[in-house]
């Protein structure tokens, strides 16, 4: 990670990586979506609505992974004073917020025909909504601190404190057994039949690559903006 502390070296790696992530992400996400919509059978209980799984699960994973990235960036900034820590945190936040929103909306759409309701104040749904609002707070705080010329330390502390919500989201289906189903996909296996499950890894990896591409593009934008600002300041002095 320290090898990337030099922005010039980071940009040398980030430029080709962005294009690769975009290309791989588009191929896998489109392939996974097409397979999920046309090649898999309907579920015996949920019928065709089970197909929402292929976008809902990746967005839930990325909503949470985004905040994990923010927490890691916050640690690197607060502990090692990594020069790209604040930039990385601010770059990840819009992508994380977008996927948290996709997770909430697709879950709500899935809930209507499956549970008979658009929304319920269930542990999993509520903690995911809290995560979305945490993202909005992080984006607002990050841009306010950047505008005032701060180092982003308050935003980093907020990012670390907000990470408390991640285990709450993960264990919510075990702590409060209300409406949302329990864990059906774990590290060791899944209760979903392989005939339905197989396109999910494609959309998981595909959307993760697209998330990475969006975050890298935002980092490159922030670094270019900082370069312009520094040069303008030197020219004005």
């Amino acid at each position, binding site marked *: 990670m320290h090898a990337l502390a030099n922005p010039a070296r980071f940009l040398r790696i980030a430029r080709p990586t962005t294009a690769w992530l975009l290309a791989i992400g588009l191929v896998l996400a489109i392939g996974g979506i097409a397979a999920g*919509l046309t090649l898999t059978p309907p579920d015996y209980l949920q019928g*065709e609505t089970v197909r*929402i799984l292929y976008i809902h699960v990746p967005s839930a994973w990325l909503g949470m992974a985004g905040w994990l990235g923010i927490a890691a960036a916050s640690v690197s900034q607060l502990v090692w004073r990594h020069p790209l820590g604040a930039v990385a945190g601010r770059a990840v936040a819009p992508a994380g917020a*977008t996927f948290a929103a996709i997770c909430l*909306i697709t879950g709500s759409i899935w809930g*209507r025909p499956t549970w008979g309701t658009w929304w319920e104040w269930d542990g999993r749904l509520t903690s995911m909504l809290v995560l979305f609002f945490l993202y909005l707070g992080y984006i607002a705080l990050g841009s306010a601190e950047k505008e005032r010329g701060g180092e982003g330390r308050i935003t980093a502390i907020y990012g670390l404190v907000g990470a408390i919500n991640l285990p709450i989201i993960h264990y919510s289906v075990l702590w409060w057994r209300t409406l949302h189903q329990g864990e059906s996909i774990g590290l060791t296996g899944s209760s979903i039949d392989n005939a339905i499950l197989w396109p999910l890894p494609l959309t998981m990896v595909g959307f993760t690559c697209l998330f990475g591409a*969006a975050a890298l593009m935002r980092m490159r*934008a922030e670094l*270019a903006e900082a370069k*312009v600002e520094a040069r303008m300041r030197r020219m004005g002095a």
Partner: protein
Amino acid sequence: MNPWPFVVGAYSVAIVLTAALLLWSYASMRRAEAAADALKRK
């Protein structure tokens, strides 16, 4: 209840929001890098 409007609706939301995120990120990157390059040439 016909499930397809729900499936189509969910996929539309996911595709539109992901595309908007990528286009916005790309546009802001291109704009910022073009401004930095223009300033370097001055």
